[in-house]
């Protein structure tokens, strides 16, 4: 039985559609990666699935319950850790988890026991009586995750759980997500990090401008793209000429920056000598060359025409706004 079923889900703010006709299904015990840039509609979708926002069209069920008609039953079945960990900096970690247990209707003594266990699990036992405002970003995310788990939910929603974290903290969260999934928890994970989706997700949905543009396992999506590409780093003055030369060998892909040329080749490593020779004959010096296997970024480029990570760098903070 699917843990999440979404059919034609829509959300409009005045005349603007943040989510338009999203369909997806997440099986029980699966990690579903919901990948897209800022403003793509990820958070709006999660807010509708967690009953925090009413859809303006379509329908969705979570853990078998309709998100509009059976909202309270949905809320009993889900754990939620939203973007920018929504924590009270004046509370201690222990107070927060105990409050969360009370909110979930767990008796006081049991709530205390679970709080102790969870704080131990996310390695915050020693910091449990410190105020959350004194925690590092990674500690706050781990606490947020622990709070979402206090009632042992069937479905866990994680909205960009590692955004802004350092690599070590990110890895810790990944390990915890994998462990939870091994215990049978279904995880719906939104992310703007390609690697995160690739590493964690059984299935990936790519959303752009409120629509799902691709869906499947990371491997199947990459297989759709097919060929690897060669990434060349060159002097800026040589780019136009290099594109002309490489365009005769393979298909040019949109460049990541002003110093790279990406050329898709059919035979992988076997095509490298041909590219090197052609550039040498044209008198173009190559600073570096790398053969890159298809990634989810390539899938993203194929489906949207631009790089996800480049988009992130170019997007001014806080814009566009997601509800």
């Amino acid at each position: 039985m699917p843990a999440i079923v979404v059919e034609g889900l829509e959300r409009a703010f005045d005349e603007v559609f943040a989510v338009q006709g999203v369909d997806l299904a997440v099986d029980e015990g699966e990690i579903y990666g919901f990948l897209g840039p800022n403003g793509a509609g990820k958070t709006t979708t999660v807010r509708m699935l967690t009953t925090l926002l009413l859809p303006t069209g379509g329908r969705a069920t979570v853990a078998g319950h309709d998100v509009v008609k059976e909202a309270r039953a949905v809320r009993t079945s889900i754990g939620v850790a939203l973007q920018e960990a929504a924590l009270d900096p004046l509370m201690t970690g222990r107070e927060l988890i105990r409050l969360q247990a009370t909110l979930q209707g767990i008796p006081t003594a049991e709530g205390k026991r679970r709080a102790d266990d969870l704080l131990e699990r996310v390695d915050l036992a020693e910091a449990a009586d410190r105020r959350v405002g004194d925690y590092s970003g990674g500690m706050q995310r781990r606490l947020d995750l622990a709070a979402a788990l206090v009632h042992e939910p069937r479905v866990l929603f994680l909205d960009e759980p590692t955004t802004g974290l350092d690599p070590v903290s990110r890895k810790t969260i990944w390990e915890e997500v994998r462990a939870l999934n091994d215990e049978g928890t279904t995880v719906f994970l939104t992310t703007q990090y390609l690697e995160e989706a690739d590493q964690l997700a059984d299935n990936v949905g790519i959303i752009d401008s409120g629509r799902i543009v691709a869906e499947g396992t990371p491997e199947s999506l990459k297989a759709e793209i097919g060929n690897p590409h060669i990434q060349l780093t060159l002097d800026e003055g040589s780019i136009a000429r290099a594109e002309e030369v490489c365009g005769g060998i393979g298909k040019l892909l949109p460049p990541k920056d002003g110093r790279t040329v990406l050329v898709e080749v059919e035979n992988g490593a076997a095509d490298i000598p041909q590219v090197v020779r052609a550039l040498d004959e044209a008198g173009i010096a190559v600073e570096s060359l790398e053969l890159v296997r298809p990634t989810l970024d390539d899938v993203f480029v194929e489906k949207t025409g631009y790089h996800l990570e480049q988009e992130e760098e170019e997007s001014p903070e806080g814009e566009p706004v997601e509800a």
Partner: protein
Amino acid sequence: MNSLATNLRVVRALGMRSIRQTFRRPQLMAPIIVFPTLLLAIQTGGAGSAINLPGFPPVQSFLQFMLAGAMMQSLMLAGNSGGIALAVDIEMGFTDRLFAAPISRFTIVLGRLAGTAALGLFAALWFLAIGLIFGAEIESGVPGALIAIALVTTCALAVGGIGAAIALRTGSASVVQGLFPLVLVVLFISTAFFPQDLMIEPAKTIAEYNPLSFVVDGIRDPMISGISGSETLDAVLAIAGIAALGLVLSARALRHRVRTG
């Protein structure tokens, strides 16, 4: 555990959080205790001979008269601070955590109001203690003190409802904070700090119909004279009116927030 018991546990837990939050954030605590205490000290120290003015009600001391006003100021600012704290919760996303829990969403408002009522109780006890320490007598004794405490506590809850409604509707702490001067204006055109007979028009007429005057007179009456059934009843009715308005506005604002996300 039944649903009512669960909801009561949630209200208590959120009320406790609200109290802790206020004591841990000086900018929420200062308006409730520090400002009214300073104003009380300045007014009683500087205008104590006002009690000799013709038309001033018979009182033992200006401090005895002013205690009710200080309590009223404190509870009004407790309601305002409760609204600010709720708006901060909305701004930082903490209310999403509460909205995503399987509880009646109105318990979120009730939890905040329970905390505000507890702060009202604290304020009543604080100013009664100050009054007693500095020689003010409670003319109607313990029963009068209990009436004053009950009125201050319930009025804090009622005013908190309006603060919560504004917080839920706007979701902006700065908007709720911006009402701070308005709270003082409404308070100054009541009988909180001046006897109505000494006011000039139009303040005198406004004060006559200002619901806060009914409440403050109900608090003051047992302190400066005896317990009067009519003054107490008027105060209870005024508080009930403010509470009804606050709860209706809060419920509507909550519905709007849930609908629009």
